[in-house]
């Protein structure tokens, strides 16, 4: 059965409404395309060739590490394909196939002969940053890590938020009251200072940061889900489920949650963009991902420190602006699609 046939008429109408919002519909596809492409960043921007032909055998440096001795070199360490010696050795007995951008996010181009940050040129379309790394490559990797971070944070905090909100709204009474008070205290914490202090103790990695931000980001959905559950728990169909003997968990997740998902789903794109902004701003302040990781926030810092090299700031700004605008447009379309009063005439 096709997807459209399996959808309830209500969801079919929503999909229809979502499609009618042309801006949101196209934004979604552009965003998905960009994200899809960035998932294959290693084949687009890499300092290792995609394919090497050497002495009648094929090598795939993108996927596997080969010692330099394989190509007639002297060292047991991994071959550095940017080294003119290695390149010439391979070219003599075969050929190399390079990705579209022959630089990784961390590869430093030492052959430029201009001080870093180098301005845009034929080799570096958007120039290099202050350590001689290609800006385009860093943008691609930076976009990918931002989106992945944002998606993971959104999913995990939504799951936690929905569960807490559901418990609160469904049981009400003391459960509701105590969680609500806890939320008020927890929400009053100065998140930024806490993160700064914590990052003094630990070297933040992707997962550490995710965990730290999750401590506070799960609260976004709690109120909405709680309100939906408070409303729904006295509905007749919930009473009917209870009369059938359904347990609390079954009632919450099978009967109430599907009817409470509308608010959750329409808030998700906004939570996603919020998570990405959080990561970028931490990076900007230097409390984010470890040094050397490709990050849009860190590139903005570089742009700020190197005002004589506007390509840094402008590229990072454009990348962040496009990414967030696309998400906000998608979010608007989702919100419209779930709005029962909205008619498109």
């Amino acid at each position: 059965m096709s997807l459209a046939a399996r959808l309830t008429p209500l969801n079919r109408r929503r999909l229809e409404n979502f499609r009618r919002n042309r801006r949101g519909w196209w934004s979604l596809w552009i965003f998905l395309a960009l994200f899809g492409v960035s998932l294959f960043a290693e084949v687009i921007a890499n300092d290792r060739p995609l394919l090497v032909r050497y002495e009648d055998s094929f090598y795939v440096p993108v996927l596997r590490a080969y010692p330099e001795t394989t190509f007639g070199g002297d060292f047991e360490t991994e071959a550095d394909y940017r080294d003119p010696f290695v390149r010439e050795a391979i070219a003599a007995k075969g050929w190399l196939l390079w990705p579209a951008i022959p630089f990784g996010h961390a590869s430093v181009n030492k052959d430029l002969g201009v001080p870093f940050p180098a301005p845009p040129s034929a080799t570096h379309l958007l120039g290099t940053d202050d350590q001689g790394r290609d800006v385009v490559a860093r943008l691609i990797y930076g976009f990918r890590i931002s989106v992945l971070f944002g998606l993971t944070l959104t999913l995990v905090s939504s799951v936690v938020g929905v569960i807490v909100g559901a418990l609160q709204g469904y049981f009400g009474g003391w459960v509701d009251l105590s969680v609500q008070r806890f939320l008020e205290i927890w929400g009053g914490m100065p998140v930024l200072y806490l993160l700064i202090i914590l990052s003094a103790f630990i070297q933040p990695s992707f997962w550490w940061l995710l965990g730290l931000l999750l401590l506070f980001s799960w609260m976004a959905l709690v109120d909405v889900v709680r309100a939906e559950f408070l409303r729904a728990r006295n509905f007749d169909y919930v009473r009917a489920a209870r009369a059938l003997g359904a347990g609390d968990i079954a009632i919450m997740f099978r009967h109430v949650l599907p009817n409470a998902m509308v608010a959750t789903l329409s808030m998700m794109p906004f939570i996603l963009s919020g998570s990405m902004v959080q990561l970028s701003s931490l990076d900007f302040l230097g409390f984010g991902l470890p040094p050397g990781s490709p990050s849009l926030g860190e590139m903005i810092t570089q742009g700020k420190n190197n005002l004589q090299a506007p390509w840094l700031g402008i590229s990072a700004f454009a990348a962040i602006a496009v990414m967030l605008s696309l998400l906000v447009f998608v979010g608007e379309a989702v919100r419209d699609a779930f709005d029962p009063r909205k008619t498109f005439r």
Partner: protein
Amino acid sequence: MTQALLEVSDLSVSFDLGGGRRSTAVDRVSFRLDRGETLALVGESGSGKSVTALSVLQLLPYPVAAHAPGGSIRFAGEELLGAPEQRLRAVRGNRIAMIFQEPMTSLNPLHTIERQIGEALVIHKHLSPGDARARIVDLLRLVGMGAQAEKRLDAYPHQLSGGQRQRVMIAMALANEPDLLIADEPTTAVDVTIQAQLLELLRDLQARLGMAMLFITHDLGVVRKIAGRVAVMNQGRIVETGPVGEVFARPAHDYTRHLLAAEPKGRPPARPADAPVVLEAQDMRVWFPIKAGVLRRTVSHIKAVDGVDIVLRAGQTLGVVGESGSGKTTLGFAVLRLESSRGRIVFDGREIQDLRGKALRPLRREMQIVFQDPFGSLSPRLSVGEIVAEGLRIHGIGADAAARDGLVIEALREVRLDPETRHRYPHEFSGGQRQRIAIARALVLKPKFVVLDEPTSALDMSVQAQIVDLLRDLQTRHGLAYMFISHDLKVVRALADEVLVLKDGRVVERGPSAAIFEAPREPYTRALMAAAFDLATVERGAVRS
């Protein structure tokens, strides 16, 4: 022939469904209404009666709704169809007034009664606040708010009962002494006793003020009581018009005959008095605490159910009747252990009052409930098949999905629905069909005892009769015990073996159905019966007003 007050000819209304499709709600309807006359517009839901009434005041959502050319609505000689907005405003609320079905939502919750009624006076009569106030008090007296009229001026809608709100609505409508009052099911949302009072009030006011009335209802009893002439609507058309007595005595059209035959009839067959007891409850109490003060100490209780005893035998029906707020539904929930209560409950020989959580679950299979509102009782996200199979899933009945599907099909057949409906979703069904789905959901578990919480009061009259027949049939076939909760005594008489009359959480009268209906002893029971069967009120004080 003198000029009619309202003359509607060839009125059609169609709605834009989007995507170029239109549906016709009203199809070339013509009728006339003379001064001082009452015309009842009767039909089932979806027959176009409300749309017809709203077109008179041009209150439909234009341009989604549109009138076909060629129709006309003439009010006192003036064409209203397509009249400029300014002319219409001068007519609305001034010469033609309207009262709606749902008094809670048709009053603005943020305005006091004085402001609600005063608005029409200020707009159309340009009265000063002082004069308006005096007139408002007069109006409230007129609609029977009695001595409290002056005190009620500063009340907000939520502080009034349903009947009082409807009286305020009537006062608003009468504020400018209209020539025509359009009443759109004004008594559907209130108890039978309140309905009788409101009908009496409307009839009395009409005679006193000499206005014409267009009365919309699905209840033929109401028509008989209030109208001079009747127009029967079916699927957007008027199929029959004439004086009420004539139409009811000699219906010319099949549909009218069908409507007339549709009132719940019949009596339960005589049943042995020594059938095994399925449910016995003693001294049931449900008290809701009233808390006050900083420490939220319980200062007193609302006694929703206060010391009620029940005995229910296999294959029999206990009718529980009373006005809204009398504790009927709470009692039903309490015996099912859906509401915490005190008192002894013995179900099928087992004490169930102290069972908790898991221990209670197997019993859920044996006792089921059908709710009043067929729109709220089915989860909109589950298909009909999933809804009916939910109980099977919970209790692990049926070996696999195919076996369960078979049981679902059987249950749907039993409530006379096409088994193919199990792949569809609740919103695709009418109220009567949804109620059948709800019954199927209860029956698929093969329970011994079912609480029916006003299962017919949200339905059209003819559908009510079908559901009553279905319930009676299922009871005979499966030996079910019913606890039938209703304020509508007609339906109770058609089903119940025994009747329990509740007032303020206490039993005022109980006994075999025949005895109660033949010779009610208590004035409260007599008032309920007069309201239900004759739409009449009895002496003040027996029921609330």
